[in-house]
């Protein structure tokens, strides 16, 4: 039977039960072949709080949440909802217990409208015929109450990611959820969209709902969480109150040793220009000028950071440098050679290396072994290929073992398929491959997205290492702190142009942020 969303939504506004325990998980254990993903985990969620769940990639956060939502069955342990032991055998049980989950990958039906997505599975109907009047009214009310901004009639596939996430939130609120699980919701959002999400969190918190929030971004966690539970290798290490939590403390609890988030990044005397971009223009498939008159150069021994809100031409810029692209004007030169018309292999032979934004699509062959992934791009070159053009297995395996050790990739063996690794370790594989090519120009596009603090620290060190080896590094990141702490020079991109350049010494976060929003100089 469909739940009555209208009744479930506003009634909790007065909220006499604030602070009471909504949910208790006790001694949850779950093993997968080869790993104990959750090892006797216990946690507690109260009404009217945001509980942050933090831990390195692979710590077991998603597994725990999938157990709570009934997608996985725990090997042992108990779940108590409002002090009553419950068996959650599937999402249906979870929903009827008032538990809702916004997954890491959205669970939407793209061609359906927002309203259809909301009612799906909990439809209102008479004799099997759908009726939308009541659901529409209930959803409209929820939109208003929770700082959402969605048009119920729009089809979901045309919505930007931030709004799709709002549809997911609306979906679970509509089902009367009191316990809301968010698995890395901000990984796909721009900073502005994240702020909107946190506004929604605050409103839901004020209504007495309990929110479990998973994130790798410690600043966000400190911003929104009331309590913070740290998980490491499947175990709860500690639960902190907001007041006692600091960034270094959380990071240390997560990793198990102190983490230095400020990298030692000395400024080096810059060498000759390696990458020269001149008046570059690019028109995308929709006919929009995604790049206009972009000019900058990156010199040997420096990191040039591109700051900007996502979608202001960063992806297109990287594309024009890394791939053969039909540009509409200007030029891109690498060590003096014009890149126009050159295919990827020729670009790489000139010394280009690339850590792509989407590591699954462009960085790895997920079903291939690590060993094979490590030689992509140099698979046709000497140690890996024999005179007869066959691949030399022994060399490939040796190369893989060396890189795994050198770059601290956590994997069972070099024959493990890439998809079996956590995000942070996948990123290390890509970085190991690209760095081992001894690049002259390293493009690093969102290198730490979705990566935990331990791996982030490691990646920062590698970028600095590349620069020390004389490479020119072009860094693109949506994380302003990252750009600020790594770059020697910063270019701010807005609407397809670099509207301002800063030297590292003279850049302040406020001022860079000001240009990111497209404000003209005062």
């Amino acid at each position, binding site marked *: 039977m469909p739940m009555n969303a209208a009744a479930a939504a506003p009634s909790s506004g007065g909220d006499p039960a604030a602070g009471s325990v909504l949910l208790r998980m006790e001694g949850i254990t779950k093993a997968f072949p080869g790993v104990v993903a959750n090892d006797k985990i216990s946690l507690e969620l109260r009404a009217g709080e945001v509980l942050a769940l933090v831990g390195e990639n692979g710590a077991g956060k998603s597994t725990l949440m*999938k157990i709570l*939502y009934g*997608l*996985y*069955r725990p090997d042992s342990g108990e779940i108590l909802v409002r002090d009553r032991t419950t068996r959650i055998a*599937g*999402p*249906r049980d979870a*929903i009827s217990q008032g538990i809702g*989950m916004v*997954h890491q990958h*959205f*669970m*939407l*039906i*793209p*061609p*359906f409208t927002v309203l*259809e997505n909301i*009612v*799906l*599975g*909990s*439809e209102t*109907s008479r004799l*099997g*015929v*759908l009726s939308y009047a009541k659901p529409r009214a209930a959803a409209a009310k929820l939109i208003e109450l929770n700082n959402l901004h969605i048009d119920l009639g729009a089809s979901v596939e045309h919505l930007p990611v931030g709004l799709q996430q709002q549809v997911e939130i609306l979906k679970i609120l509509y089902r009367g959820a009191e316990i809301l699980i968010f698995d890395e919701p901000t990984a796909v959002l721009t900073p502005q969209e994240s702020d909107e999400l946190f506004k929604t969190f605050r409103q839901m918190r004020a209504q007495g709902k309990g929110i479990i929030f998973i994130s790798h971004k410690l600043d966000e966690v400190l911003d929104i969480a009331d309590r913070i539970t740290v998980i490491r290798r499947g175990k709860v290490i500690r639960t902190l109150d907001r007041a006692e939590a600091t960034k270094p403390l959380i990071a240390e609890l997560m990793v198990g040793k102190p983490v230095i988030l400020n990298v030692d990044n000395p400024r080096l005397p810059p060498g000759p220009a390696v990458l020269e971009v001149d008046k570059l223009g690019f028109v995308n498939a929709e006919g929009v000028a995604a790049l206009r008159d972009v000019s900058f150069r990156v010199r040997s021994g420096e990191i040039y950071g591109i700051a900007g809100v996502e979608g202001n031409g960063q992806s297109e810029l990287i594309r024009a440098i890394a791939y053969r692209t039909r540009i509409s004007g200007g030029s891109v030169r690498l060590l003096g050679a014009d890149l126009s018309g050159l295919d990827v292999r020729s670009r790489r032979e000139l010394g280009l290396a690339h850590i792509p934004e989407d590591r699954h699509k462009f960085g790895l062959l997920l079903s291939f072994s690590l060993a094979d992934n490590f030689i992509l791009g140099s698979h046709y070159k000497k140690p890996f290929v024999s005179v007869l053009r066959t691949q030399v297995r022994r060399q490939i395996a040796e190369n893989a073992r060396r890189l795994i050790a050198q770059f601290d990739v956590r994997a069972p063996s070099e024959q493990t398929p890439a998809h079996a690794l956590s995000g942070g370790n996948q990123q290390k594989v890509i970085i190991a491959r690209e760095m081992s090519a001894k690049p002259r120009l390293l493009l690093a596009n969102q290198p730490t997205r979705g990566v935990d603090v331990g791996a982030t620290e490691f990646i920062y060190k590698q970028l600095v290492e590349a620069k020390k080896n004389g490479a020119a590094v072009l860094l693109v990141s949506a994380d302003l702190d990252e750009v600020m702490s790594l770059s020697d020079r910063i270019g701010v991109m807005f609407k397809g142009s670099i509207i301002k350049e800063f030297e590292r010494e003279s850049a302040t976060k406020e001022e860079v942020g000001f240009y990111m929003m497209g404000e003209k100089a005062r």
Partner: protein
Amino acid sequence: MHWGTLFDYICKGLDTSAPLAFAALGGVFSEKSGVVNIALEGGMLFSAFSIVWGSIIFHSLWLGLLFAVVIGMAFAAIHAVVTITYKVNQIISGVALNILAEGIARFLSQNIFGQETQSAMNPYSFPSYRGMNVFSLVVIPVAILSWFVLNKTVFGLRLRSVGENPEAADTLGINVTLMRYSGVLISGAMCGLSAAVLYPSRWVSGMTGGRGFIALAAMIFGRWSPIGAVLASLLFGYADAARISFASSIQIPSQFVQMFPYVLAVVVLAGVVGRSRAPAADGVPYEKGED
């Protein structure tokens, strides 16, 4: 052309379109749920045998039709079990079933009617009007009903969701397997209905002549919508009727004339395929996340 001949042509065209239209509607249900069913051809053929056989056994065309519908569903159920429960590649299962249908029908025909390549005459038939089997008109309410079911009912919404993103549907508590079985079984029932308008008077080996595939083309051209699929079936059906009507009066080798509907299908598909989009999970077996 006289009004009379034009009217004849309209009726004749409906007659040739109706089997395509029923089968195409079946394809829509199956594919909207995420299962590619190229066994429509075999389903039509086997149902065409069943309606003759059933009518003779039960001494009634209506019971024969019911029999054909049930057999069509049973035949589709094989596809469902193999592709949904056992997750065998849907194309391979479809190809196998198409071969199987012909084989079983021949075997039964040999044993029942004493002839491998054709059945006995079915003495029962639907009335015909100007060369049109009047049952053809039934396709119109069935198309409207299909549209209504797919777009206005809880069942339709869930069926479509499973064809687009079964994982999402599953997390909302929708039974993916049940929905996909339903889609495939409905396509089997539609094959049974198509048998009523194909040629219920006699079964002949190979009599479907690729109509199941043309129906699939109509489904694609109709963008997986019931009304679109029926309109596309009318296009192909009238093209075929034109071929039959005018074949004798044109000085072209008959083989070329016979190619006409198929060439039309290829051209039309080449023109629309870019713009027409299949359900996202069409043809993809659903594997649950864990265990």
